[in-house]
């Protein structure tokens, strides 16, 4: 088993939480893991990414080589495209469709849609709306994680356990809403793929 994942977004959108949950889920499975994070300057509203590598074999590089990434999981549509050089030929791009616009030259909606449609394998869902729909707008990042579950090579149960571990400190209600978000994301992605 080997999964190379790139998580993408804008500073402050919560990609490190996703990384921690996937990491926890992978450790439960007894897998090796390397996860390169971005700290510092670019956290101030700039583009951020995290390389996450899971394997039952030893992992050497902390960075995913270009052209070897199995899954790009992005919380922001334009950011998902920034990492295309990394995506393997049969890899999949999974992204939120809600743009985060903090720059003046952000591409037009139509252009963005076209660029995403050009990617061979892709799933695009509106995680912001889905999260609002289940009454927890803040769990948008977990909705996105849910959308990717099927492609991460780990059982759903591991992710549920990981959500409990990571959010446990914040109380039962927060855990519940995040598990709900996880399922909502998965269901939407499945419908979207049909």
């Amino acid at each position: 088993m080997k999964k190379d994942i790139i998580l993408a977004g804008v500073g402050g959108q919560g990609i490190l939480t996703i990384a921690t949950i996937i990491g926890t889920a992978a450790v439960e499975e007894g897998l090796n893991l390397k996860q390169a994070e971005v700290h510092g300057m670019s956290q101030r509203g700039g583009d951020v990414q995290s390389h996450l590598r899971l394997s039952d074999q030893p992992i050497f590089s902390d960075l995913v080589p270009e052209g070897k990434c199995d899954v790009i999981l992005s919380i922001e549509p334009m950011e998902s495209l920034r990492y295309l050089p990394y995506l393997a030929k049969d890899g999949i791009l999974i992204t939120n469709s809600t743009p985060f616009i903090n720059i003046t030259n952000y591409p037009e909606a139509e252009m963005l849609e076209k660029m995403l449609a050009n990617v061979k394998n892709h799933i695009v869902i509106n995680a912001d709306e889905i999260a609002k729909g289940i009454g927890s707008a803040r769990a948008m990042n977990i909705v996105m994680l849910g959308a990717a579950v099927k492609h991460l090579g780990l059982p759903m149960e591991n992710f549920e356990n990981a959500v409990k571990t990571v959010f446990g400190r914040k109380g039962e209600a927060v855990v519940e809403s995040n598990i709900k978000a996880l399922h909502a994301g998965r269901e939407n992605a499945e419908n979207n793929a049909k």
Partner: protein
Amino acid sequence: MKKLLLLGDEALAQGAIDAGMSGVFAYPGTPSTEITEYIQVNEDAIKRDIHRTWASNEKTAVEAAVGMSYAGKRTMCCMKHVGLNVAADAFMNSAFVGANGGNLIAVADDPSMHSSQNEQDSRFYAKFAMIPCLEPSSQQEAYDMAFYGLDYSERVKLPIMVRLTTRLSHSRAGVIRKEMLAENEIKLPEDPDQFMLLPSYSRAKYKKLIKLQDELIKTSEESPFNSYEAGEDKSLGIIACGLAYNYVKEVFDGGKSPYPILKICQYPLPKNMIHKIMNECDRILVVEEGQPIVEEMLKGYMPNDKIRGRLDGSFSRDGEINPNKVMAALGMANTTGEAIPENVVGRPPALCVGCPHIDSFNVLNDVLEEHGKGHVFSDIGCYTLGYLPPYNAIDTVLDMGASITMAKGAADAGLFPAVAVIGDGTFGHSGLTGLADCIYDETNVVVVILDNATTGMTGGQNYCIEGRLEDICIGLGVEKEHIRVVTPLKKNHEENVKVFREEFDYEGVSVIIPRRECIQTLAQKHRTAKVTK
């Protein structure tokens, strides 16, 4: 034992705690900050009451660590690469006095300048000071090197550098812990002259340090962190340093290289291993993160076709190494996928919405309108982003503390107005002496100290002179009536413009302190307050 998932920084921190360290002395700076932050909240560190508060700057940190080593206890100091420039005097001399209790000097380099104003390779400093340097290739090695390094430091009686780079500092992997060691007892140096650098003593110490070099090389040759991996194809040998070793292994299926690989994670260079690979192989590819220090040593000055690396273009001269660069250097097929679509635009970092610096810049820009551009000497922090549109409010950045002294030099040259814009954290790090220079010379400068009550850029650390800015300025000799505190808010704009204008008009040293807390640390406080409620 259960594996801990740790950043490279955290692995080194956990290693030092477990190896019986009694104190960390550090100044924040990406990518080194997480070493100390981990120790600050670690349960064992708290139980043992390991020293773990921030120092004023890197120089005071290194000196305090040497003091703790003098007292016989194990210690570590941490900083980013440019921090070692600030600490260089203490660092270089610490090699002369050596160590009593184990002393690790952890320096995190930032190749590709993800969060730094320059790119420099700290291994040069270790070589310069003639002390050993450890360069972990994995989180586990970072952990193990804390044990090895502290012990080695005590045996060889020298401080030991640990050199990290961004990708290891900020990458997480499983780490297996060892049994925790007890701390050392206080024990003064056996030789009362050890920490005395009068010239006559220094001359003897320098000879001793030179004589020690052969022993350091021998230890590198026997180091568990340096290894020689045999390979069938001797047309090429690969020398892979630190983290670059992983990138080399990555490009071969299952990590099995057809070429011999010499992995180097401890310096000075292991001479006999270098000889072996040089004799065995037709050509040598040196893969190292940072500047081509090993390559240059092997290549020498005269033309030499055998050694490949950054100098002959096998790798770019600057920036980080990665697996794809290694593939290219080895002539392997490029695996890269689709290009980034043209319409994907850059998203540079920016000041947070609601940041107090924004209001200060707006005031400054209004006042400077009548004087034109080129008058604002600034410094390093979140406010450096004020150079970018829409603010375009500052003109220079050099190094921490340089705003005040550059403004002074320009004022001495006759430039009017000469304005320094410096953060409160940076003022505490190295602004005080510059202000003292201005007072001494009665220079006509306006010093704006942006007081957001934190070290924002590096994630919101406390700093040593917090809450005492006015008293310090008065103490340094600034006249009370020319220390002006304002609140940077939109509604105060006109009033603040007036204050700035008055101080621009005053001929002498003025200090203006726009004071409002960083909204990130403020939000953080609200969150913690909520959790503890």
